[in-house]
C-alpha cells in the first residue's frame, strides 16, 4: 500500500558519536546538506518510518551547537530582510567558544556540509589570525612549533624585513 509520491518526513533522529539521540525537525536538518541528502533519499524510497541518521564523527556536545546554529538559520531561511540580525547572532554565537571547541565545530560543519557555518568558522579563524604574532597564534591554537632546523631558518628569513 506504500505510496511513494505522498511520502514526506517531518522529523528525523540524529545519533551522535557518543550515542545520544536528537530529534530534529526537517527544516532545521535541511540546513545540513548531509542530513538533507539522507532525508531526500529516504523520501524517494517512499518510507514513512522515522529515520535514524548516525553521525560517527560528531560528539553530542558539538552536535548540540551545530543544531543550535541550524535552528536559528532555519528560522531565517525564508527571510532575507533580517540578515543584519542574523549576522549579529552569528557573530555572538562563535565568540562564546574556546579554540578547541571551535576546531571541533569547524570539522563538524565540514562533515555535515553546513556550508554557511563552515564559512563563518573559517572567517572567524582568519580574523583572529590577522591581529596576532606567530607566537600568539601558536599559543592560542595550542600548536607546537614542529619545524625542522632548516625550515626554521627559512621562516626566520622570510619574516625579516631589511631596510636600506
Amino acid at each position, binding site marked *: 500500500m506504500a505510496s511513494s509520491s505522498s511520502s514526506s518526513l517531518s522529523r528525523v533522529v540524529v545519533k551522535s558519536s557518543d550515542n545520544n539521540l536528537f530529534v530534529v525537525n526537517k527544516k532545521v536538518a535541511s540546513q545540513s546538506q548531509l542530513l538533507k541528502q539522507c532525508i531526500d533519499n529516504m523520501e524517494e524510497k517512499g518510507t514513512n518510518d522515522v529515520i535514524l541518521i548516525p553521525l560517527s564523527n560528531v560528539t553530542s556536545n558539538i552536535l548540540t551547537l551545530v543544531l543550535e546554529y541550524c535552528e536559528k538559520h532555519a528560522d531565517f531561511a525564508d527571510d532575507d530582510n533580517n540578515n543584519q540580525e542574523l549576522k549579529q547572532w552569528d557573530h555572538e554565537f562563535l565568540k562564546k567558544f574556546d579554540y578547541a571547541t571551535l576546531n571541533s565545530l569547524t*570539522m563538524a560543519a565540514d562533515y555535515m556540509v553546513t556550508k554557511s557555518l563552515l564559512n563563518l568558522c573559517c572567517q572567524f579563524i582568519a580574523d583572529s*589570525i590577522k*591581529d596576532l*604574532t*606567530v607566537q*600568539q597564534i601558536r599559543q592560542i591554537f595550542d600548536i607546537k612549533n614542529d619545524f625542522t632546523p632548516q625550515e626554521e631558518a627559512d621562516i626566520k628569513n622570510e619574516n625579516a624585513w*631589511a631596510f636600506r
Partner: protein
Amino acid sequence: MADWSELPAELIGEILTYLNSPIDILRFRSICSTWRQSTPLNGGHQFPFSLPFHGISLFKRSIFQLSPSKTSIVEFLEKTNSWVIKVEEKNPNFFNLFFPLSWNQIAPLPINFPTVIDLFNIRIREMGHEFFLRYTDEVYCRGDFLNLLMEKVAFLSGQNGDDFFLLTIHISGGLALYNNVDNQWHVISDDLDLPYDDVIAFNGEFYAVDYVGKTVLVGTDTANSVNLVANSVCGGDQKRLVEMGGELMLVDVYMGLPPWDDDHNIEDLDEYVSSSRSVWFKVYRLDREGKTWVEVKDLGNNILFVGMTSAFAASAVDFAFHKGNCIYFPFPDKFHPSCLYEGDDIFRFHCGGVFHMEDSSISYSELFWPPPPWITSSSLEV
C-alpha cells in the same frame, strides 16, 4: 582531541580564502609544518611587473600598521603605540620605506633605525596598498610616452588567474584602461566634461571620479562602457574615492578655503576669506538609487587616511583610539611649527595632520614619524 595542527588541507584552503594580504599568508605559513605545507606560496604577480612592449612597469607599495607584542593586558598601550608605514619590496625581503601619505621615500634612514625588522616579534596588519606606473629607461631615450598621468592606478584581477586590468588617468583628462590579455591601452574620453581626478577598484569593479565629483562605473568588457553612478557635488579642490566599511565614499579636499555653505551671505565674504587655512574635508556616501553623493558628517568609529597617492580606511578599535571620526592627511611642512622637532628634517617633511570631523579642528600626528621607541630601541638584528 581537537588538534589545529592536524587541520585537513581542504579546511586550511577554506581559511586561506579569507586571508587576502600576503603578510597574513606569510604568517600563516610560519605557524607549523602542516599549515605551511597546505599553504601555497604567494601566487599572483610579483612586482614590479613590466607591461610588454609599452616600456612601463607596474609597482606596488603596501601600507602596514605595526604594533609591539607583549601580553594582552597591555594591549591598549601597545596599539596606541602603533606605527604606520608604507613599504616597497625592492628585492626579496629588502624594503624601501615611504611616508604613507605621499610618494616620498624616507631616506636616508636615521641612525637609530633598525636595519632589520623581525616580523616574528611584532604585530603587523596590512591597511591598504597602492599601485603606480613608471616608464622604463628606454622609453625616456625614445621619447615614446603613452601620455598617461600615472599618479593613481587602480588594479583588478580578471576571471582567469593571471589576467588583470589597470585603470588610470590619461593626460587628456580621460581614462585609460589596460588589460594584459590584449596588452593594449584603451583611452576612454567620450562624454568627457571635466578631467578625471581619481580612480579606484571597489568590489571587483572600477570607478572614476572627476574634479567636481561626477562618478562613473568603468566596464572592463570590450565596449569599455562608462556609466554614471553619481552626479557632481562641486565643492573642493581634490576628489578622492575610498572604501570605508564596505561602502564607496568620496572625500572632497579643500585647500586654502573652507567649504562655502549655502547659508553664507555675500556680506560674509571677508570673514570667509579670513578663515582660510591649509586644509578642510567633506565626506560623502554613495546613494546608488538617487545617483548622488550624500554628505556624512560623522564617520563613527572610522578613521580615513587620505594621501596623495592612495586613500584607505581603518577602525579606531585597531588603534585603540577612544574615538574615530577623523581624517589623516599629509600636512604641508610650511604649516608645521618645526621648532617642535628642530633638527628632525624627516619629521618636518613627512609629518601627518589629523582633521577632526566633529569640530573641523586640525592637529599634528606622530602616527607616521618619528618611529616609536619600541622600534628604534629594540635590538631586532637577525
